[in-house]
């Protein structure tokens, strides 16, 4: 077999890194919703892994007026607002990736819940078709996919045109690496021996042994 030397956009991995302004307590509610939703989807055994192409995701919320426990300025909340941080590495272009969520009624419901708890005051007018309030009041994400893309892009630090690469030849905004560029979720499911049995769509509870961290002052 020859090494992979070209990858279509569909096969590439890209990063999402959102910093979303939320109403007070909205960040916690959003996180709870995501958690509940994930549980619901795994219980339903609806296998949307290849369609969504998410390799990993991270959701983190910062309550209003607090800071991450780091000795440098990092994530910040705006005054009177929570902050929801979302990070993911996903397959394909931004639009089909987001479409795969919007087109799933369960996930779309979760997205709408998050938008209902956003606070975009001082950032964008409520009358702007890409504002969370406008989207919610005018057919929600299901009827406003383009507007939803633009809402997300407003808070996306990541650049959806930068592919994760094993060998970086040029970069501008950041470096994004991947040990196996082009190894999509679909390819893993199709080609890793017994992938669907080892990681069934109705995910079992995994007993994670305790991981360790170094002892530091």
């Amino acid at each position: 077999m020859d090494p992979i030397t070209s990858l279509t956009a569909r096969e590439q991995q890209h990063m999402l890194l959102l910093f979303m302004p939320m109403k007070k307590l909205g960040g916690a509610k959003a996180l709870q919703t995501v958690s509940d939703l994930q549980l619901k989807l795994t219980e339903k055994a609806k296998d949307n892994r290849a369609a969504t192409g998410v390799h990993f995701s991270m959701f983190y919320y910062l309550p209003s007026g607090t800071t991450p426990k780091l000795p440098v300025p990092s994530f910040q909340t705006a005054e009177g607002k929570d902050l929801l941080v979302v990070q993911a590495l996903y397959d394909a272009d931004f639009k089909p990736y987001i479409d795969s969520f919007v087109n799933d009624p369960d996930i779309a419901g979760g997205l709408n819940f998050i938008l209902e708890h956003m606070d975009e005051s001082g950032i964008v007018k409520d009358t702007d078709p890409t504002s969370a309030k406008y989207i919610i009041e005018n057919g929600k994400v299901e009827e406003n996919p383009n507007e939803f893309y633009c809402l997300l892009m407003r808070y996306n630090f990541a650049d959806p045109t930068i592919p994760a690469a094993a060998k970086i030849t040029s970069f501008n905004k950041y470096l994004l690496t991947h040990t196996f560029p082009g190894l999509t979720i679909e390819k893993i499911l199709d080609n890793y021996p017994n992938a669907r049995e080892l990681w069934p769509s109705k995910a079992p509870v995994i007993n994670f042994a305790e991981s360790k961290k170094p002892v530091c002052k």
Partner: protein
Amino acid sequence: MINLNDIRNNYPTPKLDDIQGIILRGYTFPYIRYIIFTIADKNGAQAFLSNILPGASDIEVTSAKPWELDKRPEYSLTVGLTYSGMRELMQEENREEVEGRSSNVFSLFMEGAVGDAIAVGDVGASAPKNWWKRSGEWKLNENPSANNNELHILVSIYADSTANREDYHQKLLAQIPLSDNGLALKEAYLQDSDPLKAGDDYIHFGYKDSLSQPRLSNVPWNTTQGRLLLGKSTVDDRPLVPPYHFVITPKFKKDPSKTDSPMLPKYKAHPLLYNGSFAAFRVLHQDVKAFKDFIDKPRGEGITPALVAAKMCGRWYDGTPLMVSPDHPLQPENPDDKLEGFDFTNFNYMSRTAHQRGDVQSDDFGQVCPYAAHIRRTNPRDDWKVQGNTNNAEEKRLMRRAGPYGPDYNPEKPDNIPRGLVGLFICANLSAQFSFIMETWVTNGGFRNGDENSDISPNKSGVDPVFGIDDGMANHENFAFLPPASPEKPKTEDYTILDGLPQFIRTDGGLYVFLPGIEGLRHLANGTIPKP
């Protein structure tokens, strides 16, 4: 059995006299001329639009109003405006109000075909910087600009003869007023479309085309009575597609008797857009020599040029779908082929339609019609495993009004004369329909997913093989298909892989245009907008 078209529903009946005729009904005029104008004078351009309103002069925009005695007129006329054209014609505050209330359908229109080029695969040789001067007649002294913003109005003349086409073109030009600096509109580009010797509806690659337009509901010519009057079969098992996917329609309750009934359509639009539509105008150069060379390459036993062409398209040259006849085109003289009542479009991929011809029961593995095949990926019908095909392809459909340009290709005398396909791909929402189909299904493989049998082709169906693409991607340089007799669950090694798939179709021009309703056109001519 009750024809689905006769079942009453709550969908609004299209206001045919306010809709441009070509949107809902193909007129099958053989001789077409597409003319793109640049606006040199706003007032003169508005006067031109007034002059072509119905009843205003001896050439007028054709509405969808049924013809008397169903007799086709000598010509029909369609007019569309680009976003830059609407900017030229509309007061800024009016335009902003329309944009603000129409974001669903307007956002991509504002970007235009140039802005959407990468998404729809117009890269490399098809990139916008190469458009217009390679095919057709570019008539301006200046070269096309990078953003094409000087292209404002697209007029299409459909005629039953070349003489009538020329005659009505001259009548059209006579409606352009003089301004201080000459004519108010300048012709920027002109492209004719004429039928090929093979017959109407054939394209340069040799296929019969335009066989499967959406089955519209709520239009008089598609009822049982309407079809019988037209001498057409009333047998059509395909799901109905509501006209609001092609004609911009105000929101309505799906079920008026329920307070919590969902509202349709999904998009929202300012009343200026009502009864209008959007379209992608495409000039698609076809490299017939490259296509024939690829098809004719010796492939081994049983893999004939006709089979390769059929697997690439999903139909045999004469239009017979592989799903109906996997191993040969239907022959009228062969009694076994039972052509009676066969209409080329009544079939599915996963579960047979009630009246589907042939013996194929299901093609979940793509053994009969590859997932990669042109007609399967542009209209996946009941293939629910295809990403975005959530409602039996009801939403992701286009009205295709396109035909060949350039002379017939003669393999005995190869030439470099431009030839290809030109026309309008019409929909209510460019983003959800045209751009989605091109981006997600045509130019990208991997659109079919769901389980381990979703798509085991070596390149995940790569790119539409009838198009090909010049992007240097290894997965786009081959086309793979399965022999019909492959095992129940085929393996990757069962595929016949045809390497060296070149680019056959190159985009030589593209515009996103708004095709206003008659009242919308009147407002644009008057510089007004209706109240929401």
